[in-house]
């Protein structure tokens, strides 16, 4: 049986906050073999990818009222890896406030991607761009990776708006 640490990020999400740093902090605090039981107001699909790439398997279930419980279980490789070595973005790393905000929700695909990439070209290293989209920008991510930008993204609590943050020149992307 896996021993789980509980983390409820629903209050943070309901107050409009960004729980990514908190979640990564909790993940890094896990003892070898320990798992994480996460409670959220929506199914955190991008987080499943991020922790999946760090060697966690997950089991997600809806627990009523639109809330989700996800149990992340470490596989053998994840438990032995040194913390920090497996995180693409250190948990303590809080990103600066976005210098640009875009609302691309009503644009025809692939226009949202074109505008985000155009904006990144005019921004300085380390600056952050925030954009609202109406779906996960699947074709954008490889393009950001090729250009050496970092990103974080996830669905807002309404489950319909996807908010992506792009940090210029921040290397490999993460999501939450």
């Amino acid at each position: 049986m896996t021993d789980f640490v509980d983390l409820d990020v629903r209050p943070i999400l309901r107050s409009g906050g960004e729980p990514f740093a908190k979640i990564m902090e909790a993940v890094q605090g896990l003892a070898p073999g320990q798992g994480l039981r996460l409670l959220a107001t929506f199914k955190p699909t991008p987080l499943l990818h991020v922790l999946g790439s760090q060697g966690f398997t997950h089991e997600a279930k809806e627990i009523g009222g639109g809330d989700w419980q996800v149990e992340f279980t470490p596989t053998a490789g994840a438990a032995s890896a040194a913390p920090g070595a497996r995180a693409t973005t250190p948990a303590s790393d809080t990103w600066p406030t976005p210098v640009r905000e875009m609302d691309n929700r009503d644009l025809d695909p692939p226009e949202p991607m074109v505008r985000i990439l155009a904006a990144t070209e005019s921004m300085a290293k380390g600056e952050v761009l925030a954009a609202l989209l109406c779906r996960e920008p699947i074709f954008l991510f490889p393009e950001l990776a090729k250009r050496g930008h970092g990103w974080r993204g996830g669905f807002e609590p309404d489950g319909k708006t996807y908010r992506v943050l792009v940090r210029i020149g921040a290397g490999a992307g993460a999501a939450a």
Partner: protein
Amino acid sequence: MIGATLSRWTLSYFASAVAFLLAAEALMVLGFGYPGSALRSPETLVLVHCVAIGWLSLLMCGALFQFVPVLVAKPIHSNTLPLPALLLILTGLGALIAGFLQLAGYLPPNASVFMAASVLLGAGFLLVLWNLGRTLAAAWPLNLPARFVTIGLASVAATVTFGVLFTLGFAGEAQGPFLLELRARGLPLHFIAGLGGWLTFTAIGVSHRLLAMFMLSPELEGASTRWTFYLGTLALAIVVIGGVVAIAVGGRLDVVLLGAGLVGLACLALYARDVVQLYRKRVRPVIELNSRMAGVALGQLAAAALLTSAAAALGVVDRFGGALVFLVAFGWLSGLGLAKLYKIIAFVTWLECYGPVLGKTPTPRVQDLVVEPRARRWFWLYFAAVDAATLCLALEATLIFRVAAAAMLLATAAIALEFIRTRRLSNVKAALRLPTGTRLPRLLFTFVAS
């Protein structure tokens, strides 16, 4: 990595598929196969498999290699395996056609051809299933559109299994009493699993997402979409499992098919409701040609469902079966396929060519790669010709059918030419066509930096 990249061999699948569609239409113009020959003649089998495997299955496989990763937001398991799979399916199909031509007396008999067809086609589809299956398994638990695809893949597995058993029979192998009975009575299971499960059910699942994406409509995840999935899955299970059991115990197959038909009809009614919602709730007032023509194809599916129900109620399915299957294959599946190809080819070509320089230099829009008014005429000619040809089949007007088939061939060739123009960026203004850092995409495959 999170996200999806371009599929390397999807364009090769599309090109082979369109070539087989043109070949099949040319055979119909020449009067080869049904209605000139009997529905179950070897000539008709050549024609049917050119359409079902050569055109529709290759089209669907190519599309899935690109879109399953998009549906599940995971990279494809292998971007290399689709090529050997394509070569196996193409050589297997060649062997199968050669086998049917032997049965028709055009070639000297040689049973090993059927054996080769079984092995090659079985191996080719197995590779496709393995690659897509691994991609889906990595994305567990699956979202609803991906679950439709999973049932579609289970159906193609069933279709190919039946097909291999029939083909081994032609080769003189696998002669047990149950297999003989299956060969005698199992043909409806083979083509319902293929046309209904593999092609139609997968198209339904993928179309939910593609229509929502291209028209900016809200995603469908409600109860009616879930029930479309459950009822469709049930109908297919009744056909495949119930059908095999009925044959094994000597039960009545028509009762099984009627039950599946009723459940399938309920599934299609729910799908129709969802599609109307997608078109009504769209954010874009003016929709692109691909969405409009997909609408026409959906109308053909509705017509086919209603006409099949009417024919069943009147007890004349056998008489009009050929015309009804023709309408499903060419009005619905091929119409939808050509409409979606028109958009997909433009999109993947645009992303391949201009993706690396987006934002760095002025680039054309996706819509600058196509000239819709020119293509629109050919799409209307195509659908008009299909409906005329269906009517000719129902009325047994064999000669006029060949004229209608010629119109289909002309329209398809013109649409194929539009695909090539899109791929070669022929429609893009010279000033924007190839900015520094871009190169002209190849016609038959996609350059993917790994």
